């Protein structure tokens, strides 16, 4: 049989306010770690980022499982062996999945939603591609399987980053959409 609790449903008391902390009524300690890193990116990512500067997307092929892997890596995680060759891929692909975000990084509601998703890159094995933004379309147009193309930053502004692609926009038959 359940024992009757002597505790009230909620204990009476006063909430701690920001003021109490600012006025040092509450004892606390504060610390800001200064940690900085500079990661070596290795041969696969170096080449990938370098090629983005040229407006090109490059992958690696594993001859054993015949996958064309993008983003590229020097070893195949399925076969557990080195990958074999570089392959240039198209800067087009199809939407694998997407979401429409109505919140910004600080969880504030925004007027123009951000379109984000995964693009499978043409020329790579199915479901190989990367996460990116979508643009040049209305949110309601975005759908799984949609053909998209990269919109690149002007060459002089590229710095060897995945953001050298601004976003992916829809491909329309007979050329680029305006």
């Amino acid at each position, binding site marked *: 049989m359940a024992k009757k609790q002597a505790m009230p449903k909620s204990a009476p008391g006063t909430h701690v306010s920001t003021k109490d902390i600012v006025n040092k009524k509450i004892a606390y300690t504060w610390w800001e770690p200064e*940690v*900085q*890193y500079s*990661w*070596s990116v*290795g041969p696969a990512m170096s080449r990938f980022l370098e090629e983005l500067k040229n407006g090109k997307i490059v992958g690696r092929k594993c001859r054993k499982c015949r996958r064309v892997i993008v983003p590229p890596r*020097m*070893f195949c995680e399925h076969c557990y062996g080195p990958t074999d060759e570089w392959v240039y891929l198209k800067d087009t692909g199809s939407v694998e999945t997407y979401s429409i975000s109505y919140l910004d990084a600080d969880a504030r509601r925004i007027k123009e939603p951000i379109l984000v998703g995964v693009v499978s890159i043409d020329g790579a094995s199915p479901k190989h591609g990367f996460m990116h933004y979508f643009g040049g379309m209305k949110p309601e147009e975005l759908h799984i399987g949609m053909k998209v193309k990269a919109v690149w930053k002007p060459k002089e502004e590229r710095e060897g980053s995945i953001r050298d692609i601004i976003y992916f926009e829809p491909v329309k038959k007979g050329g680029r959409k305006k």
Partner: protein
Amino acid sequence: MNKVCVIGVGHTDFNSMTPDMEWKEFMYEACQKAYVDAGIDPRKDVDSFITCAEDYYEGFGIFDEFVPDQIGATLRPCGTVCGDGIHGLGNAFMQIKTGLMDIVAIEAHSKVSDLLTFGDVVLFAFDPVFERPISGPVERPNFAGSPSYTKKAPKPLIGSSKETERIHPYFLAGLEMQHYLRKTGTTEEQCAKVVVKNKKNAFRNPYADYEARIRVEDVMESEYMFKPVKSLDIAPTVDGAVCIVLASHKKAKELGVDPIYLSGFGYCSETPWLSTRGMDAGYAKVAAKMAYKMAGIKKPRKEIDIVEVDDKFSYKELQHLESLGLARSGEAAELLEEGELDVKGSLPTNTSGGLLGVGNCLEATGLQKSLEIVTQLRGHAGKRQVPDCEVGLAQSWRGIPTGTGAVAIFTREGR
């Protein structure tokens, strides 16, 4: 009961910087070599994978998630131990002992050259209320509610010219060494001899990075960092990755490999209160006791043929030997001077070059030390081979400011 064997070892070269490789490729190299050494395919044969890593050393939150691909563990049982490599070995040991796993791979690495602010990460491991503020600006007393340093007087990075304005967290080694010298009668010169020996041993270890032909005077004349600790008493950090593959005895026989046995291990942590806890490596004492019992070792000094102990600071080698029961208090320095700790002595210690000669590889320390013991027991140590070694001990300490250590006992014969 199920005996546990080492069936494969692999490692990268150890270098102070490795800008040519990403940390994933670095781990892949060590693991692939270990799997080739064991003659197994990780995608089919390894039942469980363990990596030993600390998020702040890596620069990733939840580093565990970034591990599987490069160790062969994608879509396989895989987990990370936040500890030294020997903690990983211990976990693997238990997994095999339960009978649940036949083959377990353990990886640990240091890619510390990617970490620009090593000192700050060490400092971040201090208690935030009581001990971290001690590292704040000396002239500015810290009290609750105030930052230890302000935007106006930001904390300088390691190696910055303003470093003297505040204390570096390695001062703890100064406190401990002072205590050790006083308690045991060991001298700074004797500690310097550890540095000379280990850097000399490193010449015969192809993967070591800090080999050097130096004299005791060189160490003595190197500048005081945290008196009595001098700059050459400190093991410099290094990048390196090691992988060890363990298997049940039955599996090792099936594979037809000539195994080395992991016959015992132990681990222990002291209280984090720096000013209250002991200064005589009690963690090593307790961990060793556990490991000796498991391996059936009654007289460690007589039964153990070779040891690799943690030497992140020169005095640590001597202190650890004493804590492990391999020397009486104050005796380690005598053994060193008598040449007993040399490759040809009666208690060869840190034949790999130790961390002073190989480099401080952080959480990979325990596996680097285990690697050396296994290499020696296999008889594969080349020019630094210790003849007729049957029983070896590897010991690690997680470094400043921890009071955590682990011990592993390897044997040629199953126990």
